[in-house]
């Protein structure tokens, strides 16, 4: 009794990734970045990052080159659609073997 | 009158201060050693000017029955016009006391089986320096004169305490004058 175990007696959540599981499994298509077209990669300095801005799932890093966390990327394709240089293409997941999928 | 258990019913109008008057008497009774004091206003949708009732029960022992008074020992009527609107003697014990604020002469009333006490509290209060229509402190003087419950001094003290920020001396003066001028008879 008392308040000692209070937290265990309520719906008290603490934060962490993957509440929805490994949401990368939701993906039908995978975004693939062509670094030869990607603006920050080409200029080798911080620039553009539109893919990072619009990513609903916080899976694209604001780095050179931008990296996509495939464990959680749901494959919505917004990054591909919004990329001003069409550096990102959505590729059918079926083309990647499980082995490759895990490595990425 | 049995002074172990006294029931007083107050008839006034909404806004006239019957509750405050009853509360002053209740506090004086409690201070005088009555352990049981219960004051219950009319329950419901009180509106300014409409007739209202307040029950005051005073007992030597704690009161457990909070139901309204059915057979009062005393009724206090703050406005003589209420006699036409309400059955103020309803349930009044034989020989019970009616305290009436009225500009009319004592002789113009006749209540069989009851003792009447009258005073023109409205005029007395103005004389004491209160605004016209403030009668709830003056009437306490008449009540004490007619019923002789607690002694006038403790009531005057109670009035001054209750009205400590609102003309305490004038209010107690109204009660003192009323105490002196109340006409009581059999």
């Amino acid at each position: 009794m008392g308040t000692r175990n209070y937290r265990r007696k309520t719906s008290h959540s603490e934060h962490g990734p993957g509440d929805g599981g490994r949401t990368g499994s939701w993906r039908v298509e995978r975004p693939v970045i062509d670094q030869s077209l990607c603006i920050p990669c080409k200029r080798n300095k911080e620039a553009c990052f539109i893919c990072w801005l619009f990513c609903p799932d916080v899976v694209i890093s604001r780095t050179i080159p931008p990296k996509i966390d495939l464990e959680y990327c749901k494959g919505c394709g917004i990054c591909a659609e919004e990329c001003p240089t069409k550096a990102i293409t959505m590729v059918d997941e079926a083309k990647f073997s499980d082995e490759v999928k895990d490595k990425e | 009158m049995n002074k172990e258990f006294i029931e007083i019913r107050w008839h006034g109008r909404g806004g006239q201060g019957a509750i405050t008057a009853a509360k002053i008497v209740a506090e004086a009774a409690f201070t005088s050693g009555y352990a049981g004091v219960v004051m219950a206003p009319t329950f419901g949708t009180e509106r300014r000017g409409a007739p209202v009732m307040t029950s005051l029960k005073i007992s030597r022992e704690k009161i457990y029955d909070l139901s309204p008074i059915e057979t009062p020992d005393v009724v206090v009527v703050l406005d003589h016009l209420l006699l036409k609107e309400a059955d103020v003697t309803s349930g009044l014990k034989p020989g019970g006391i009616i305290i009436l604020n009225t500009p009319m002469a004592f002789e113009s009333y006749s209540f069989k089986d009851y003792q009447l006490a009258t005073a023109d509290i409205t005029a007395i209060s103005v004389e004491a320096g209160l605004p016209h229509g403030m009668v709830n402190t003056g009437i306490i003087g008449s009540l004490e004169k007619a019923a002789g419950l607690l002694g006038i001094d403790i009531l005057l003290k109670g009035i001054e305490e209750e009205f400590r920020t609102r003309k305490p001396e004038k209010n107690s003066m109204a009660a003192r004058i009323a105490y002196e001028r109340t006409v009581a008879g059999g």
Partner: protein
Amino acid sequence: MHIIENGNVAAALGVKLCRAAVIAAYPITPQTPVTERLSEYVEAGEMKAEYIHVESEHSALAVCIAASSTGARTFTATSSNGLLYMHEQVQWAAGARLPIVMCVVNRAISAPWNVWNDQQDSISQRDTGWIQMYCADHQQIIDSVIKAYWLAEKASIPIMVCYDGYILSHTYMPFDVPDQERVDAFLPPFQPDYALNPKEPANLNTVTLPDVRMDVKGELAHGYMEIRYLLHEDLRKTLAVAADAEKRYAEIFGRGGDPYLESYRCDDADYVAVGLGSITYQLRVSVDALRKEGINVGVMGVRFYRPFPDAAIAKALKGKKGVIVFEKALSYGYEGALASDLKSALYEHLAGTGHLPLVQNFIAGIGGREIRTDDLTHNFRAATRSRIAKEPVWIGLKL
């Protein structure tokens, strides 16, 4: 110090003494004077609290829920339809385990409109997971409010302090107002195990699954069912905590007794009247009258209705010839809720012992219908002579 005031002021003074930090309320008769009085204390600087003028009762409890979740001692009060309008928040506060104290100034519920007293409002909230206390006079109101904060915060369970509208809320009588120092000694500042804050972020009361689930540290967390079970279990355990509260209160304030039941001339009684609130004090007058007639009767007020003190009740009523339940509410389509609960407790503890009393049920004072003491006495007497009816009997019904 003894003062003469009405029941609503007794409640407000209790809240002030307990140093509630956030008060939210919406006007409804006959509760309004409680929170009006609190607004006076706050505006005059006599009480340090945030007073929130909400736009509904639903929001009044919402403010208390959020404030309590952030670590404040909170208070609200309501009556009747106001309580019904809060209903989902009432349930929420219990499920979130927030020690909110709320006065319910008992009033009939609509339709049709009625502003007078009965207890259908709080009885309708019986199953919400709150502790329910019922008061019979002003001393119990102020004492119950103070005890309620201690108990609520010990148990992490909200409490309704219920008292009869008008009959107690607007009636003046003397009662003792405890000293601030002693209340402070009784009731330490509210220190919740967790209060919302950015340094230690948590997400409270989100969707909780039917089954258990792993948390971020890899430990198994409860499912919805476990959380609700624990509310029930703790509510049952609160009976013991209430006894502690009563004991501590008596030590510090010199007042107290049985935490759950208030019995009058019951020990040698053959028949015992049972009820909630001020009617149980009125029944004392009937008991005295019937005793003079040679009928051995007593009366027992149930002060603690949820959690239900079933064992204490069964113990007190064991071997009585009859139990007569006087109620100001009912479970429409059956009988008074208290009568049902009593029967259940008696059956559970006394079935087969040969000491099972007969239970009869009277319904009285619905929608403020005046309860005459003579009528109570008359019906009480009749119920000691024979079984009047299987169905609950409505006292004073003019059909």
